[in-house]
């Protein structure tokens, strides 16, 4: 039991006849914080259920997962995934290697399964939540506040959507969070002890390096850490920045040399995508609407630190991550680009509430009811408001459906399946509700989705060649080559960095027995060749997408 509750209880026991309003004032904060904890533990159960059901689904849930599995398979065979897109199988990765390398042992042990990377990513989010909780606990020493801060991260709609996918993004956020939390602790320990802890600082640098070689977007966190370091110890920050930049650059040059320049082409040039202003503005609005309490509390605390005390690394990290979230407006980017800002805001919110509680404690002394009661009540209420704003729940689980109904939330939504290569379809009932609105992610896959995936894989297996497919999963299932990474090809095509001659020759010669389209991500000349040489013979719906199954004309 935390101090303020003990103080309230002891204060209450001193009274022989406690009035009802006083009793209410004593117990109301406890009830509200208990309810908030229940709500966020509930979100964790929802998250775990979603993750477990995704682990069982053997096909792409999010377009691109299969290509990350392919990267892992190539690493498990001792090959680089940064390859020549101009030659068969026209495949290359556009992501740094660490997440896939970490997943390699699971692929060696169990084979190329989607659950391997999904499990690694999911565990990464749990570690991030634990690090957030630790950061708040280190300063606040209130277990319930630390738990709420960590659980709030897992309850974010964005973390829920992306956390258990075979995508490297949340693994990057894990390294970023660990680096920032450790850096804060190291500098605090150094300032308290008056001596330098270079060994621990080296660990921070390694975590930052790991974040950057998990996903390029980590540059913002690297910048935040060095800005903080420079503000506190300018000369030492520069002395550490030089070897850090040198090691980062040397690794970059080594991979580029090992891959004959394919690393630079595929991870840098291919990521220079057009910026869509409306997409960025829309995502910023959505992020703020979903995370209002966390964001406002974090912003207020950051501004307070700017003017009234020393800036913490958490405040700098939050602001830099927030500014960097504007890159969510790039074509191919999305909501997950806000995950770092969400992690930072969870820590800052926890610390901000701790500071206000500390202030109230000092003001009240041993009074049973006073500022502490008011602040605890407000904290409980604010976390409940935040929980309500983040509402998301698959309602095909009877208990979840009952909870949604009891809370007055919708128990289903009507969404038209996504079509690109077939005629539009009527909306259908989806047993998943989400405050983020119509979301393509978050709805757990069903037995019907698995059956649909197997049907498409059997369509591929009925031919003799690999399918020219926008998802890798069907070729994996049928034991065929993984051919093309469509979004990568489109990015390179838009930057005039790919020669499609061989690919178009193969399509024009109907060298592939089947073509599977989901969103028509291929470059226009490729789609033209497919349209001329192949025809749709079957439509299969999986995960809310209508796949076009094509055979040569």
């Amino acid at each position, binding site marked *: 039991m935390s101090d303020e509750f003990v103080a309230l209880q002891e204060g209450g026991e001193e009274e022989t006849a406690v009035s009802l309003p006083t009793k209410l004032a004593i117990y109301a904060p406890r009830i509200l914080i208990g309810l908030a904890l229940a709500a966020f533990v509930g979100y964790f159960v929802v998250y775990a259920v979603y993750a477990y059901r995704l682990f069982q689904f053997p096909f792409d849930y999010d377009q691109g997962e299969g290509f990350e599995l392919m990267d892992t398979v190539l690493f498990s065979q001792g090959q680089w995934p940064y390859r020549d897109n101009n030659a068969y199988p026209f495949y290359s990765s556009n992501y740094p290697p660490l997440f896939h390398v970490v997943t390699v042992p699971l692929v060696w042990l169990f084979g190329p399964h989607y659950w391997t990377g999904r499990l690694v990513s999911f565990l990464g989010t749990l570690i991030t939540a634990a690090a957030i909780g630790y950061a708040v606990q280190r300063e606040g020493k209130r277990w319930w506040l630390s738990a709420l801060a960590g659980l709030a991260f897992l309850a974010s709609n964005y973390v829920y959507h992306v956390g258990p996918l075979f995508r490297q993004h949340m693994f990057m956020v894990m390294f970023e969070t660990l680096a920032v939390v450790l850096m804060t602790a190291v500098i605090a320990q150094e300032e308290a002890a008056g001596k330098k802890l270079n060994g621990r600082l080296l660990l921070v640098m390694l975590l930052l390096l790991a974040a950057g070689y998990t996903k390029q977007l980590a540059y913002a966190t690297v910048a935040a850490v060095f800005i903080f370091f*420079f*503000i*506190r110890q*300018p000369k030492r920050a520069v002395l550490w920045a030089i070897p850090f930049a040198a090691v980062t650059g040397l690794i970059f040059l080594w991979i580029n040399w090992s891959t004959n320049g394919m690393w630079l082409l595929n991870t840098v040039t291919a990521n220079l995508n057009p910026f869509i*202003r409306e997409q960025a503005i829309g995502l910023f609005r959505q992020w703020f609407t979903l995370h209002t309490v966390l964001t406002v509390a974090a912003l207020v605390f950051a501004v307070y630190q*700017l*003017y009234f005390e*020393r*800036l913490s690394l958490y405040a700098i990290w939050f602001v830099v991550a927030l500014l960097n979230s504007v890159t969510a407006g790039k074509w191919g980017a999305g909501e997950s680009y806000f995950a770092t800002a969400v992690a930072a805001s969870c820590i800052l919110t926890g610390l901000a509430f701790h500071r206000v509680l500390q202030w109230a404690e000092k003001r009240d002394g041993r009074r049973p009811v006073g500022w502490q009661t008011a602040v605890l009540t407000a904290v409980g209420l604010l976390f409940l408001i935040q929980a309500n704003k983040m509402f998301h729940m698959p309602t095909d689980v009877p208990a979840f459906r009952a909870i949604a109904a009891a809370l007055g939330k919708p128990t289903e939504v009507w969404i038209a399946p996504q079509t690109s290569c077939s005629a539009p379809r009527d909306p259908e009932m989806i047993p998943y509700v989400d405050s983020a609105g119509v979301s393509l992610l978050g709805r757990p896959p069903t037995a019907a989705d698995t059956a649909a995936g197997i049907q498409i894989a059997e369509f591929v297996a009925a031919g003799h060649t690999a399918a020219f497919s926008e998802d890798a999963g069907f070729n994996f299932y049928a034991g065929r080559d993984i051919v093309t990474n469509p979004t990568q090809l489109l990015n390179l095509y838009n930057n005039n960095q790919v020669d499609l001659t061989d690919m178009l020759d193969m399509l024009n010669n109907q060298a592939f027995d089947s073509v599977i389209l989901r969103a028509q991500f291929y470059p226009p000349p490729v789609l033209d060749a497919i349209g001329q040489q192949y025809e749709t013979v079957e439509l299969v719906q999986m995960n809310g997408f209508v796949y076009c199954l094509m055979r040569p004309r």
Partner: protein
Amino acid sequence: MTKRQLGYAFIALGLLAAVGSFVNDMLGAGEFQGVGPTQRLALLAAGAIILVGVSLLPLGDRPA
């Protein structure tokens, strides 16, 4: 680093951002004649950064 030095750093950053948005035009990256909508946003942000910097100057030698 002091709050005042941090203020100067903010002002420099804001000026750099404002100049950068025009350099972008000189390099031919903009698609609008005059000041475009994204450029206007960038200039507003640069102005806000400069204002924050100016507001930090009176805080003097307190540690940043």
